[in-house]
């Protein structure tokens, strides 16, 4: 720091601690709820400290599913599906958009700006507002109940292309020049120079898109009818809104913890690259 002001430092710590407490509190309570039995969850006040049913609850959720008996969908299957979907969305999106951005930035060709805008306007419109027609297309292509159906319609968005474009624009022209003088082909330039330089951007996008893919809810709900394609987030949300019955909060929260864990780990472990990637491309 510029100068030493003990009061300000203490204040900063206090604010940070308060912030962390508020931000982490819902997650903490979710964890706490997942360690008690059903009866404790039906009466206020709900304890603030963990209970003794942790192993029992998680075992039930992991082996039998949310419902006891034959109604449960094995959580491991849903976790695996979420993982496949998240990885598919992240990798697929990065792959198609990095080459598209490469084309738009490094080439001059007829219709270039048309393509650019065509990609660009898809930036934010969520799938929720065009469900019926999108479903129709997926069904017509025979992609219901398939990983392709879960993944491909979701990767039709421009965020990644846009971020790569911004990054490529900041790459010094001298590198391209040198590469051209050496007689390297565009693809060689792409592989040998551009791709390695984009590492941090790719890492940042991987985090964003992994989470985006993992967190999808309505889309998987609509296009899957086979349990073998259910995802975990969709399962959590469905069990929270059950007709004519109260949710089993303890098991629901155990499931919510499991649904949160993988994306949280991805964010925490890739935090540094994530921030660097975003800052380099966006700013």
């Amino acid at each position, binding site marked *: 720091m510029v100068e030493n002001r003990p009061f300000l430092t203490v204040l900063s710590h206090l604010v940070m601690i308060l912030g962390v407490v508020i931000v982490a509190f819902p997650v903490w309570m979710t964890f706490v709820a997942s360690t008690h039995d059903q009866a404790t969850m039906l009466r206020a006040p709900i304890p603030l400290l963990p209970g003794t049913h942790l192993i029992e609850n998680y075992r039930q959720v992991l082996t039998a599913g949310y419902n006891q008996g034959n*109604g449960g969908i094995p959580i491991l299957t849903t976790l695996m599906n979420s993982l496949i979907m998240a990885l598919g969305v992240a990798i697929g999106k990065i792959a198609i958009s990095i080459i598209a951005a490469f084309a738009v930035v490094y080439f001059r060709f007829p219709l270039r700006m048309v393509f650019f805008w065509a990609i660009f306007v898809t930036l934010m419109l969520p799938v929720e507002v065009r469900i*019926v027609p999108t479903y129709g297309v997926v069904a017509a292509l025979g992609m219901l109940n398939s990983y392709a159906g879960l993944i491909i319609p979701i990767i039709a968005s421009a965020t990644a292309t846009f971020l790569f474009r911004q990054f490529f624009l900041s790459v010094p022209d001298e590198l391209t020049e040198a590469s051209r003088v050496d007689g390297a082909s565009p693809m060689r330039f792409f592989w040998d120079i551009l791709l390695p330089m984009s590492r941090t951007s790719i890492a940042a996008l991987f985090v964003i898109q992994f989470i985006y893919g993992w967190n999808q809810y309505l889309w998987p*709900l609509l296009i899957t009818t086979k349990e073998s394609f259910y995802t975990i987030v969709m399962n959590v*949300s469905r069990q929270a809104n*059950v*007709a004519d019955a109260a949710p089993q909060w303890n098991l629901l929260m155990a499931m919510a913890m499991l649904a949160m864990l993988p994306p949280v780990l991805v964010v925490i472990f890739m935090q540094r690259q994530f921030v660097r990637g975003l800052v380099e491309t966006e700013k």
Partner: protein
Amino acid sequence: MSRTLLSSVAAIVALASAHGAAAQTEIQWWHAMGGKLGEAVNAMTDEFNKSQSEYKVVPVFKGTYTETLTAAVAAFRAKQGPHIVQVFEVGTANMMAAKGAVYPVYQLMADTKEPFDPKAFLGPVYGYYSTTDGKLLSMPFNSSTPVFYWNKEMFQKAGLDPNTPPKTWKEVGDAAAKLVASGAKCGLTSAWQTWVLLENYGAWHNLPFATLQNGFGGLGTELKFNDEPRIKLISMLADWTKDKRFVYGGREDKPTPLMASGDCGMELTSSGSASTLLASLGPDKLGIGMMPYSPEVRAEPQNSIIGGATLWVLQGHPKEEYKGVAKFLNFVSSPEVAAKWHQTTGYVPITFAAAKLTEESGFYKKNPGRDVAVKELTLNPPTENSKGLRLGNFVQIRDAEDEELEAVWTGKKDAKTALDDAVKRGNELLRKFEAANK
């Protein structure tokens, strides 16, 4: 040599049985029954699938009623619809209007030559989902009716007889006052307020909810629930909210936790909530009785109407598959299956035979109060005011009713203005529906 022979035999057997499994006709059933209810659904289809080898019913839990309907709509339009979809009762008129999409049950049964007896069903259950000339459109499945729950422990504490529920609205008011005086946070609450306080209050007192036989008679129907008795009821409850004799706890079944947690001493809500309330209060504390009535409006109650959902059959599949659909629907309404569904879930038995079977099994002796719903529904033969409701855009009409009632509870409008406004808004929605479906 013998080993290879054996293994090839095994392989052939395996192939044959695999082939047998593949030859089974699959029937998709999309439903909105999660949690314990979902388990009961799965047990039911398992039983059907084991009972024969030609058809395999695949139940798919599609989330809430809205999500289930969304999925079915999207899938049907893409020609990938399920055979059977569960739709809430307020969607009935809209489903009927969806020509070319639904396969009416009476027609299905006739086309597939499956036996079918309309008289087997409880009157209000059958009537709600049939045409004016008595043809069944969708198969009743999870039906419920509002009943009166009371907390015996809190009654005792308030100096009330824990074993005698109030019979009239006046007695409910007295009980509520005593409950509040004894320290209860809330006397009475009502879940599904529009269904209980407006629709069922009407049927219970044989008052029309809308013209043209509550809408069964045609699209030109107009709402009529802003009558004197209902204005009185709502303004009385509004008065009660001031000292917590009545507490509004939200739409649909949102208020039920107030009863479950012991905040409220009395609740009017679906008979289907019995299992949730029993689970949290315990059988000793929970009483289940008939809805209160107003003797000055009608000397004796008429009968209640149902809510819940039914199974609609969708078009668009090969003819031979509908044979299986018909067989399955008959299985669902067979006495044993319907009785089991009633007993495990708390929904009403849909047929007389199922009710009788449950009675004979001694279930009601062991579970007092669980027969109240059936009693209410069969109290008298349904009149045109108590058969059910057939209103287009009913979901939005209920939203409008909910909003107007909320304006009363928060003191923004008096009961008369609110009900008049609700009727006016509802009629606009009915006219819109009429225009779209003429």
